[in-house]
């Protein structure tokens, strides 16, 4: 766990130190705390990339400025699980260095003990979000 960005590692600790019911509660809180899109994306949704692997529509944007990654997500209120997954990645990765984000292992979404609480089938959405974030960071850093 030591290679993960600190906020992401803390979230994993939070999730895995409680039982499945409380994990859902944490996910619900992250869904509620997911920031709204800033106007520059809200007004131009075409700038966002759709993550087709999510069961509900989810759109994301990635910016890398001076080596720091900023993440933006948009998903409907009726899709709290998808929003919760986005909330995990926002809390865990927003503001981290491009290098650290690229270093996050692809199977990290399975470290939260959520597969057991929400079923493994529903985990692909978060896996897909992470891989798209990493791909965009890679492209923008010319790596």
């Amino acid at each position, binding site marked *: 766990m030591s290679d993960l960005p600190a906020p992401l590692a803390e979230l994993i600790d939070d999730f895995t130190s409680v039982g499945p019911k409380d994990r859902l509660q944490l996910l*619900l809180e992250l869904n509620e705390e997911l920031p709204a899109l800033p106007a520059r994306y809200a007004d131009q949704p075409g700038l966002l990339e759709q993550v*087709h*692997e999510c*069961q509900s529509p989810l759109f994301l944007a990635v910016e890398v400025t001076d080596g720091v990654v900023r993440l933006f997500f948009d998903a409907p*209120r*009726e899709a*709290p699980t998808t929003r919760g997954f986005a909330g995990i990645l926002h809390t865990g990765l927003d503001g981290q260095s491009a290098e650290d984000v690229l270093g996050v292992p692809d199977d990290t979404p399975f470290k939260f003990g959520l597969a057991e609480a*929400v079923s493994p089938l*529903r985990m692909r959405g978060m896996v897909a979000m992470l891989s798209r974030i990493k791909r965009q960071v890679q492209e923008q850093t010319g790596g």
Partner: protein
Amino acid sequence: MSLPADPSPQLAEFAHPERLVTTEWLAEQLDSGTKDLVVLESDEDVLLYDTGHIPGSFKLDWHTDLNDPVTRDFVDGGIFAKVMSERGIGRDTTVVIYGDKSNWWAAYALWVMTLFGHPDVRLLDGGRAAWQAEQRPMTQDVPTAEPSDYPVIERSDGPVRAFRADVLAHLGRPMVDVRSPGEFSGELLHMPDYPQEGAIRGGHIPGAKSVPWARAVREDGRFRSRAELEQLYQEEQGLATDDDVIVYCRIGERSSHTWFVLSHLLGFPQVRNYDGSWTEWGNSVRVPVELGEPHE
């Protein structure tokens, strides 16, 4: 004792009006504190219940409560009894199920409860969206139930569930594919905007009629009238009420919705849901597959 059927005139025309309730009826029962009624919410999104639900309702997760965790099958009678008991449901309890997406998962849960022969299980017409659109009460309070004594009932799959072998034996007889046109023709391997759930081949089971599930509902998510449903399934598609029909989709949830329409709203006595659906058929070796648009 199960409750009397919702007497609303708009339900009376259906073959089995006792299988459907209106939001008005449910609100009245909840206001008057009717006993022996339990409301369940079953959604695609597992957190939706936690964001707010009909007061007093319990969550029923099709995946973690109704599916066996190891085998691709439903839970057995022992686990089902536990799931019911935890929600205070007895064998004589009237159960009303509602959910998101025009009741896809609610219909699926109702169908699974039918496999266990639960006598009185009904759908809330219009589901979660209809209740919310009317600004009826929602709460985040999760109720606790006095555990009930639900009997261990052996699941009876035969009458309403079809397996792959049943479908093979059924080829040439009426089948309804309720997926989107792109999935039916073979152009798409999964629902538009949904994850690919691993079918190797696209297309449909030969001879199946293409009737996307959503054609059975109005824009507000409530079921269409009996006359409109007859026009669709009987006039347009040529199905007859005494036909032996198999319905399928991708994993059996959207087709539960159509199973409900044919069985309970139109009164077809022999309708089976093939829950293996395209995720099984599209991966099976040497089963016949047809490509292309529906025949006119």
